[in-house]
């Protein structure tokens, strides 16, 4: 077997060398040109935002140009005395995410476990009902949701954002964890069951210890979604108690007095998810891709 593969590899190498003529060389150049262009187009608005955030505070240019005298003070201004309370907004975002992620992951694991390993009446119908959450545009339910939250006394309350977010994100979470539990080795579960472990015990001491990679991916995605959530926070929370993105969105009317400070605030707000992405990009990308394709 090993021999065959090495023979094959050699043969492939030989054909590859033969094929590496002018045409495929041009092809490669074209491919990298395409990729470089795509990457550049993606980066330009982001880099522009950063350079604008470093212009002197009375500047009104918004183009891509490195300032002669980078003004890092803008970040301090944005943080301490901008048009809006950035530290409070960031703290609110963090509080919301810190509640949404553990609760959201827990309910998703429990439900995904049921859908992935158990058979009960109506299980497939119920699963499809949950999957409505993947397709349904959230904008379609925001109006009654607002009045419902009002009658529950959750307007202007962080829980008014947290609870609906858990409901919104758990559709993907359930789907994602079900996928994992369905693929987990049946022998492992069977053995524990013969030993008399009940279903919760099996989840806790057999499956969860090997479930941390999908759980970590799910937690990361939920954090990013929760951090970036906009409409719910805009509608439910008051100006000063909003989460960071919707707080920032509210304060960007048509006329902005201090463009560099506003840009600095935008950079600060984008930073947590970007840092998380840089650290865990493989996990995040494969999570979104796999989640998408299997759904």
């Amino acid at each position, binding site marked *: 077997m090993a021999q065959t593969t090495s023979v094959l590899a050699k043969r492939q190498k030989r054909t590859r060398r033969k094929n590496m003529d002018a045409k495929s060389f041009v092809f490669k150049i074209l*491919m990298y040109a395409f990729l470089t262009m795509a990457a550049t187009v993606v980066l330009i608005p982001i880099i522009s*935002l950063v350079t604008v955030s470093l212009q002197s505070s009375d500047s009104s240019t918004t183009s891509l140009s490195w300032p002669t005298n980078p003004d890092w003070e803008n970040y301090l201004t944005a943080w301490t005395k901008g048009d809006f309370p950035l530290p409070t907004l960031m703290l609110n975002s963090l509080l919301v995410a810190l509640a949404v992620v553990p609760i959201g992951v827990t*309910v998703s694991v429990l439900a995904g476990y049921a859908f992935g390993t158990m058979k009960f009446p109506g299980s497939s119908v119920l699963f499809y009902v*949950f999957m409505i959450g993947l397709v349904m545009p959230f904008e379609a339910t925001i109006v009654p949701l607002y009045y419902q939250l009002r009658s529950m006394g959750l307007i202007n309350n962080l829980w008014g954002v947290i609870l609906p977010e858990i409901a919104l994100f758990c559709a993907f979470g359930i789907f994602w964890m079900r996928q994992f539990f369905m693929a987990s080795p049946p022998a492992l579960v069977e*053995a524990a069951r013969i030993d008399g472990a009940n279903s919760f015990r099996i989840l806790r001491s057999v499956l969860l210890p090997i479930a941390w990679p999908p759980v970590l991916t799910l937690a990361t995605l939920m954090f990013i979604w929760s951090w970036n959530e906009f*409409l719910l926070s805009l509608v439910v929370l008051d100006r000063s108690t909003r989460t960071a993105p919707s707080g920032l969105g509210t304060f960007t009317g048509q006329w902005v007095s201090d463009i560099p400070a506003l840009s600095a605030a935008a950079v600060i707000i*984008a930073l947590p998810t970007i840092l998380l992405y840089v650290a865990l990009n493989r996990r995040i990308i494969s999570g979104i891709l796999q989640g998408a394709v299997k759904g």
Partner: protein
Amino acid sequence: MTNSTSRVNPGTKSPAPKTSKPRRRLRFRWNEGYIGFVYLLPAGAFFLTFVITPLIQTFNLSLWDWSGLQGAPSTWVGLDNYRTVLTDPESLSALSHSMVFILTFCVIPVTLGMTFAALFSRQKIAGLVFFRTIVFLPQVISSVVIGIAWRWVYQDRGTLNQFLGFFGIESTRGWLGDFDWALPAVGIIGSWVMTGLCMVLLLSGVGRIDSDLYDAVKVDGGGAFREFFSVTLPGLRPELTVATTITIIAALRTFDIVFVTTKGGPGKETIVPGTEIYRLAFRENEIGEAATMAVVLAVIVFTLVRTVGWLLRDRDGLS
């Protein structure tokens, strides 16, 4: 089998029983009763309260005339709101803007991604991880931040005019304030967000296609077109379905980016169903009409998603 696996199980105290039970079925599933519901309970409670109930309530609200103010009376109007919304030029223009967004959020990114995947389906890409990480970046950035970044790009002294200057085109246009250009300008932001996703998605799909299939086409004397239509396209069917579905949903539900960049302006040039729902419900207290718009939006989304699924269905039952 029982013996070897029970050793792996950290939760076991007693040794595994020597008598092995007969295997009932290949996949393990509990069959006894309703324990599954207990595990569904927490997620079910959240989902029922905050997704299903509001969804049903949206239909209900769309049949009433209500201001939404506390204690305000509501009047049953039947389908009147639908008559209003579906004949109102403003709602119709919001819906037609959505169609433009389907072009820029879905058609352009999927076409670009498909072109790239088809052209370079069998190339080894050095530095793929690097490129992938960059083009995927818009997926994790808050759309508010994206909106602000693009507002700067489109301003009169912004990056777009600076870029046009390199080609000798002097422009001082503020693109987002321009009646002709605002809608395409906002739409292009959607292309910017979605193209990377589609590229990465379709590229990962192409990587999974069995390379023997390409060799088979070559042996048959098929050219690049034959290769695309008989191997690449059918092989990418699942990824293509997903890319189209995700981008169509994103196009139709757009709210954040419009809200941050133009708020629907100039005039009403960039209003979309999302901003109309927000305006009707939270600015003009027309709850019935807002709910009607929401129902119309939801119906369009579900219909288009089903249609895409049907158009790209597995006709040959191959995969």
